């Protein structure tokens, strides 16, 4: 070997070592791990934890990757206004935030503000002592914010402590396009019909769906009664009605649509908050038998009236194929007017808008109709109220890290106070994040049609909660939803025995998993 080769070997080795050392060092400084975009607003010397004015840097974990840029802009505005350096991290859009959050929590500079996705995730941060009980904060302005959070939106396990400031509220129901109703029942019929659909009973709703199904196959000027008012179909298919292949757009491969969301309606009959559900007694779970049978009946009805991309679909193995009945396909079918109704939440608004913005602008929600009766409901509501309400709940909370220094905790609280100022709620939460604030004032203007539809239910007090989030982890989607997908959605005919088998399975699994935890 020539000397130059030896020198080269040594040189390469040195380069490797330097890179290695540099790699380790930069890891400490930037504190960025995979999947996290590092949007630093502070000057280069941020690694020490102090920024420009010797004020400590406020690390903020943002679990919504979709609004990473807007969130960064908000932090910039805060820094400009107060001089407090901020450093937000956002996960990639659509990524599960829990793993990156745990990685951040284990790093040298854990976030002072982080997010907790409801009661389901609370035990983890409560047990580790990371979540600060916000009711213990000595700050009158902040105290009034914490006390002002409506009781059913508090992040708590005992009803006393409160661990988070709601990020926003979300809701879901059947999306329906007003133009579609006009095309089915004649111009300007949608206003009256939408009003009737909001409050009509399960029976009226199913009659309407059957009539639409009939109309799709053989159009005629048939009459149908909703809420006592008569509506007449157009004799010929016009406009969007020509595209119809069924009544419902359905995502059979997405277990959460029927496992989490649809079954949540039935759970609402016994539990009015996720906290109650998390604390469920066996007797209460037994009371869910009848509501779960009602839920199975509803699911049976919906899956018999599904529109497909290639014409009317039926239950069977095709219905759970991700390539034909996945989330995107269901959005596509709804936005292309292949179906009248789509069970989704206002979070899907931008997805619908990407396919057809006009449809998104014309859409509003009607409640999921479920054949529950007054005596099934233990929460004091009537069946009529039940079928005219939609679930509206807080998906995400901002929490303060109790393990950072008191000084930084105070900065975090200042930041949250600033965020909740009315003008900032309007500018950032409503204006930039396009989210529905939990404390929306009466006069708030939502740009998004589905968002304002949610607001209208909130204003009328016609809301249900998200008790499914209080069920044992992975019960709703990965156990019940999975069972429905693998055993029932592929079966063409269901009978009464199937209804009660579904109900029994759901209840026994809940009991089993509750005791295992």
């Amino acid at each position: 070997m020539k000397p130059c080769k030896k020198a080269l070997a040594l040189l390469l080795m040195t380069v490797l070592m330097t890179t290695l050392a540099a790699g380790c060092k930069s890891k400490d400084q930037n504190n960025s791990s995979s999947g996290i975009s590092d949007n630093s607003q502070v000057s280069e010397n941020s690694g020490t934890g102090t920024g420009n004015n010797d004020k400590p840097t406020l690390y903020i974990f943002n679990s919504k990757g979709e609004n990473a840029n807007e969130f960064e802009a908000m932090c910039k505005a805060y820094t400009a206004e107060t001089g407090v350096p901020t450093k937000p991290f956002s996960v990639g859009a659509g990524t599960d935030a829990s793993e990156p959050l745990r990685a951040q929590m284990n790093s040298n500079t854990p976030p002072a503000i982080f997010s907790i996705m409801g009661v389901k995730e609370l035990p983890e941060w409560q047990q580790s002592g990371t979540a600060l009980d916000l009711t213990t904060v000595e700050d009158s302005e902040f105290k009034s914010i914490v006390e002002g959070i409506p009781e059913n939106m508090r992040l708590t396990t005992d009803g006393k402590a409160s661990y988070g400031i709601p990020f926003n509220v979300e809701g879901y129901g059947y999306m329906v396009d007003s133009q579609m109703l006009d095309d089915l029942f004649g111009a300007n019929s949608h206003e009256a019909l939408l009003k009737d659909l909001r409050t009509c009973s399960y029976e009226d709703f199913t009659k309407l769906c059957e009539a639409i199904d009939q109309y799709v196959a053989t159009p005629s000027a048939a009459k149908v009664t909703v809420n006592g008012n008569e509506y007449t179909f157009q004799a010929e298919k016009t406009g969007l009605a020509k595209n119809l292949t069924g009544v419902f757009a359905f995502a059979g491969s997405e277990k959460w649509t029927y496992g989490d969301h649809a079954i949540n309606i039935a759970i609402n009959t016994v539990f009015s908050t996720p906290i109650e559900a998390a604390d469920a007694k066996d007797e209460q779970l037994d009371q869910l038998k009848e509501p779960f049978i009602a839920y199975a009946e509803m699911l049976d009805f919906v899956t018999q009236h599904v529109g497909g991309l290639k014409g009317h679909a039926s239950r069977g193995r095709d219905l759970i194929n991700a390539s034909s009945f996945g989330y995107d396909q269901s959005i596509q079918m709804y936005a292309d007017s292949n179906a009248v109704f789509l069970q989704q939440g206002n979070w899907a608004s931008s997805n619908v808008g990407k396919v057809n913005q006009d449809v998104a602008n014309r859409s509003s929600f009607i409640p999921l109709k479920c054949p529950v009766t007054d005596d099934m409901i233990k929460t004091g509501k009537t069946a009529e109220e039940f079928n005219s309400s939609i679930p509206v709940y807080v998906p995400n909370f901002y929490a303060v890290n109790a393990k950072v220094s008191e000084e930084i905790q105070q900065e975090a609280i200042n930041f949250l106070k600033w965020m909740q100022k009315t003008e900032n709620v309007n500018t950032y939460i409503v204006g930039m994040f396009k989210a529905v604030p939990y404390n929306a004032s009466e006069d708030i203007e939502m740009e998004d049609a589905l968002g304002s539809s949610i607001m209208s239910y909130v204003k009328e007090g016609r809301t249900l909660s998200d008790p499914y989030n209080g069920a044992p982890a992975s019960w709703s989607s990965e156990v019940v939803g999975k069972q429905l997908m693998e055993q029932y959605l592929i079966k063409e005919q269901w009978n009464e025995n199937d209804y009660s088998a579904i109900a029994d399975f759901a209840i026994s699994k809940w009991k089993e998993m509750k005791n295992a935890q």
Partner: protein
Amino acid sequence: MDKYFKRWFGILVLPAVLLFVLVIALPFFTGIVYSFTSWRGTYFAGGTLFQSFVGFDNYIKAFTTGTFTRSLWYTVAYTVVAVIAINLVALAFALMLGSIHRGVGMYRTVFFMPNMLGGLAMGYVWQFIFQVVYTDLIFSPDGLLHLEFMRYMTQDPVKALFALVIMTTWQSAGYMMLIYIGGLNSIPSDLYEAAAIDGAGPVRRFFKVTLPLLMSSITVVLFLTLANSFKLLDQNLALTNGDFDTRMLALQILRTTRDTQPPNYGVAQAQAVIFFLIVAAISLIQVYVTRSREVEF
């Protein structure tokens, strides 16, 4: 030259050793420690590291909850089928390319190409192939050939196992083929001539000359496919995501932290340790057995 390496040995291996220690050895040993604790991802349930030691509880839990053992057997079944399929196809490709004269380079490239696709991307592509192309076009009642077994392959544990094998064979046979081609080329042609003169036919030549002399390549390929099959994750996740009882070991470990709340990283880690022991044992036994059969020439 020897003197040079002897003198600088310590420094020259330092980067590799350091990397190995930092990236593999340290996390590995921390992992083993965590598998005996109630680690929850960011904290130890029940206090400090020392207070949270739970002995073999996590290991017992791994074997008693059922999902782990089920995925273990599913992985074993998949591995058996996949190792056979990939080896046969790869060897067949290699022998075929050895006997044709035109377009060898092109075929080699075509067979190798699927290997360059990432596992996740491939899983989604094949999901479409199984769910639409197989189900609705080729094997449907009014398709080219009505075969009910080949329809809805992602919706049944047995069918999904073969779906995975079809996909991974398509992916890795080309790569293994290259190793076999290398092995075949290193067999001296005079051995074949001598065998032919002694009256050995093509089949006999294959079993008496090719196969024994190919043993070193077979070792490599078997080792690679066995380990890869056992560790399969991306394709499993993208194709079925564990639905219809198709969770394989790696996916099972990944999902364990989502099955409960707070996440039980201790149990997940215990499963990972068992997983490591199995993979290590299989690999060592396999290398030992095949080595002893290799022929020197």
